[in-house]
């Protein structure tokens, strides 16, 4: 059974804090106790390639609705079947992850993901998608959303 993150559009503030914490959680500076303001170190270090969040905020001009979409860790994940390198794969714990070292940025996963949940990461070189932050115990976006608009469930 895989864990998934469920966005609640009715209470999402559209503040993008989940993105901030996502970037921080996946940065080289990550510590168990995440403090997003330490991101500034990252941005200074990576001047020409801002780290990309693995989350995608949907917002559209003219509507107030916003929500944060993550990879659904699909049971029958089309991204893994389309990936030409084997970078996109399912781990034994059920998560789908992208091995960014292996990825060549062919974007077959973007072609295949029905949710549009894969982003082109840093410098558009490798695919960037939610890995559920399992190493941290709880996804950083969920933990740090100020309005509890994200929830993890095992389904």
């Amino acid at each position, binding site marked *: 059974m895989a864990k*998934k993150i*469920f*966005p609640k*559009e009715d209470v999402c503030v559209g503040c993008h804090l989940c993105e901030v914490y996502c970037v921080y959680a996946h940065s080289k500076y990550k510590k168990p106790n995440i403090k997003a303001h330490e991101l500034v170190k990252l941005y200074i270090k990576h001047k020409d390639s801002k780290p990309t969040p693995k989350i995608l905020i*949907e*917002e*559209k001009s003219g*509507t107030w*609705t916003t929500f944060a*979409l993550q990879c*659904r*860790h*699909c*049971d029958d994940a*089309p*991204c893994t*079947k*389309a990936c*030409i*390198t*084997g970078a996109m794969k399912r781990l034994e714990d059920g998560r789908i992850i992208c091995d960014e070292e*292996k990825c*060549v*940025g*062919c*974007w*077959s*996963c*973007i*072609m*295949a*993901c*029905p*949710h*549009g949940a*894969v*982003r*082109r990461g840093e410098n558009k070189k490798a695919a960037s998608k939610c890995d559920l932050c399992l190493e941290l115990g709880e996804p950083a976006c969920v933990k740090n959303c100020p309005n509890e608009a994200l929830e993890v*469930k095992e*389904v």
Partner: protein
Amino acid sequence: MKYVIIGNSVAACGCIEAIRKVDTQNPIVVISDEKYRVYSRPLISYYLGGKVDESKMYIRDEDYYEKNKVETKLGKKAVAVDFKSREVILDDGEKVKYDKLLIATGGKPFVPPTKGFELKNVFTFIKFDDVKAIDEAIKSGAKKAVVIGAGLSGLKAAEALIKRNLDVTVVELANRILGSILDLEASRIVQSELEKHGIVFKLETSVDEIIGDGKVEKVKLKNGEVLDCDIVVFAIGVVPNIDFLKGTELKINRGIVVNNKMETNIQDVYAAGDCAEGYDFVFEQQRVIPIWPNAYNQGETAGYNMAGVERTFDRGFPMNSIGFFDVHMITAGIVVPNSDDIEVLVKHDKEKNAYRKIYLKNGRVVGFMFINSIDRAGMITNMIKEGFNVESIKHRLLDEDFGYLDLPKEIRQEKILGGAKA
């Protein structure tokens, strides 16, 4: 019970992975005439261009066969199958018995009879060994290359050769490059980008003769032009690799004919991937769809059925994601309208050099071409697959920020939260 797979590429992986989800015990044997463990064909151009090294060519971990209890017979070619006695005969005389057989022999290069094809430094562009040989030729001083065919693999070859600092001319019989995935307008956009990187195109002509004394020196084209060159790469296309099965009772049309369970006309014999001819959901006909995701899906479907779990795959259609230098494109389904009742939506943002074209039939997407504007394209691919009616949102489909917020709330929630019910 013993499963045997001929071919060791992505269709084989799909099959192995499906079998092992439902049957962890019975033996699986994989036979391949290539000596490598399972690697990626699409990556050969990346290898040649220096973007990936040998270690990254492999699409599964080193312990893959061991973990999945697969016995491999690598570097051995299947030369015949005796469907009566249920045996695969290998080139060294060995006979491999099967209870369930998957034929996943993929494609082989199509080369029209050409004078001079046997000369040194004339290559095809399909296998790992092909690019290793090209690499050797470059290391021993080749400077000028002629690539024959401006399809996906020909242009990938051209890109890699430019990255290795060769002069590259691409020869193409059609009036446009990437004819299988782009229409004329889109193809011109991509061509001009490739020309900026130094690739020279000769369209509407083809090779007449390859000239040289033991080794390639010149290529003579049908239009009379003669090009100096050190290497020639044939990349016109692939055809199903099934010669060794012709003349048997196996039903073959263009490829091995399969139903939506990947069964052939012979009991317990299945086929999948580039050697198989299955149903194309968009074109509504039996076709070979020689692309990676299709090969995986067909292999997987075959695997489940071979292991006794009924599964069907009837949503195959062509789709491609490919990039050259900084131009990226994703296309799917119909890319050149094939009937009068197709509605065309198009948007060309010249400033960003972004192009989106979508074809609709009865309010449903049947094909699209996105160039330099590809984020979230999978949502559209999925709409083709689901036959989703887009009538009310159709003009939003051309916008880069098209997303779930363009769908009614109930549908959006169903799609996003759907997993909760699964």
